[in-house]
């Protein structure tokens, strides 16, 4: 059974049909790319998958469960976590606390336990700290644990967002332009990190990216979106050599 099954997804903003009749199937463990020109509707698809927008048409199934129309919180609990195109960190919190926030639902203790510092508080906080450091390591952020998130350099902020998303133990990880603003060396490092994360944490990855070096380097399959519609879908090599795709990217 496929991990993610999207059927005939669609949404309109007023008169604008931002996504139309979009279908996609992602198998467990795949590294999948979603590409397309600016304004094609890629981020909108992420917002539909995570419940930020409610689709006007179509269904979304995760691991066989219908999650269409569910809230963002429920969808995260069902197993989808994401990063954002415009970085959205908890900027006044430390790097460690950003990740610990992601761990919050898995290391739960009551508010009263926290206020009265009952034994559960110390146990859970200790476990959370250890797990958070473990999550920072693949991103080489463990030495920045006490740094304020907003004081991190841009590239590290993007990595921290991935670590935070992973903390929620997702089945499917959505990355919106993870390499944006990175130099080629940083991008190469990020590609390694994404592969390691996929293998180590056993997540399935769906990523949006304009950087073709990254896309052709690590994505196994691609879907190409153009004006909200699926242009073509298939193995990375086949898709990138498709004349239709080249035309959509380069214009007539």
């Amino acid at each position, binding site marked *: 059974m496929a991990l993610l099954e999207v059927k005939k997804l669609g949404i309109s903003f007023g008169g604008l049909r931002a996504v139309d009749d979009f279908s996609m199937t992602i198998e467990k463990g795949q590294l999948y790319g979603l590409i397309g020109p600016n304004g094609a509707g890629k981020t909108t698809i992420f917002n539909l998958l995570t419940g*930020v927008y409610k689709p006007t048409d179509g269904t979304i199934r995760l691991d066989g469960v219908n999650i269409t129309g569910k809230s*963002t919180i429920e969808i995260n609990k069902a197993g989808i976590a994401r990063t954002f195109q415009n970085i959205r960190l*908890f900027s006044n919190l430390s790097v460690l606390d950003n990740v610990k926030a992601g761990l919050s639902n898995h290391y739960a203790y009551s508010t009263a336990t926290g206020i009265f510092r009952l034994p559960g508080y110390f146990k859970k906080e200790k476990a959370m700290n250890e797990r958070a450091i473990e999550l920072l390591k693949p991103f080489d952020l463990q030495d920045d644990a006490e740094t304020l998130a907003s004081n991190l350099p841009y590239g590290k902020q993007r990595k921290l967002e991935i670590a935070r998303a992973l903390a929620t133990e997702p089945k499917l990880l959505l990355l919106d332009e993870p390499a944006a603003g990175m130099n080629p060396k940083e991008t190469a490092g990020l590609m390694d990190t994404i592969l390691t994360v996929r293998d180590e944490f056993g997540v399935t990855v769906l990523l949006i990216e304009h950087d073709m070096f990254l896309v052709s380097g690590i994505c196994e399959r691609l879907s190409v979106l153009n004006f909200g519609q699926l242009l073509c879908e298939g193995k990375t090599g086949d898709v990138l050599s498709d004349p239709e795709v080249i035309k959509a990217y380069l214009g007539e």
Partner: protein
Amino acid sequence: MKKFLKGATGKSFITYAMLIIAFTAVQITVSGGHASNMFQGLLVPFCVYSIAAASLNLTVGILGELSLGQAGFMCIGAYSSALFSVCTKETITSAWIRFPIAILIGGFFAALFGVLIGIPVLRLRGDYLAIVTLAFGEIIKNVFAALYVGYDSRGLHFSLTSQGDLGLEPDGKMLINGALGISGTPKDSTFIIGFIVLLITMIILYNFINSRTGRAVMCIRDNRIAAESIGLNITKYKLITFGLTAFLAGVAGALFSHNLSILQASKFDYNLSILILVFVVLGGIGNIRGSVIAAVVLTYLPEVLRSINNYRMLMYSVVLIVMMIFTSNDKIRGFFSASLMKLKGLIFKNKAVKEGE
């Protein structure tokens, strides 16, 4: 050690230490007979306003929502606790048992109203909380000012019009007498109890902020969309925070009412809510310790300045402006800390030179 003091736990311990030192200093001054009557009369209000301001900072600074109804919650806490004490002062004679119960009752009813208001309002985005709490504070004040409650052998009687309307039997007893409020509340609020309650309040606030819940609340403040994306239940955490703020405001109200022989609702007006908000803003939004310092300084100052009556308000406003600049302007704060560092460097360098000689 230095790292510890800079961390979250360290910060809270510095605050506890500061409070205990201040308390000890005051106790020594008072027992030595060096404190004026005016100063002694302000000791309980210091605690009341510190608790009210620090707890409001939880909603304003940590949750990032504006609340203009702190006086309303204090009012509920003041009335419910005073009512309890008036009714039980003959049966429970020990203040050490009666007053803690009264304080908890005050906190409980304030929190109850906080949650009731919060459920519809905190789901919304935008400044609705400010509008609703503003209205709430005024409504509470006016309802209590018009409330008549008494009891006799037939039980409790309520009225919103007049004392006569209650139809009390001749041996009946008035509990709440409209605009005249509640009288005969035992004066259980002492500085020692006020201080203990303040210290417990600070421990609750710091422990809350440095826990899973507090972290979630700050995440919501910093970025609501990201907080949702990692599965944090926005409404739940907002409600808990606002409820805790209301609870502590109720506790402050209970301390307040047990410090007065006559409790009147008119005290809990809009100006009081704003005054407490001023403490929060001037002490630094999100800075719990700052709220306490601002509350104490700005409660003390107008009284001290009474002696130079004509310039009182002028001085007061100058202090307000200076504090505002100090606490909210990063550049000026940076300038002062930089010059402090330079000064330190100068002193230490001189020392080094001397040692070298």
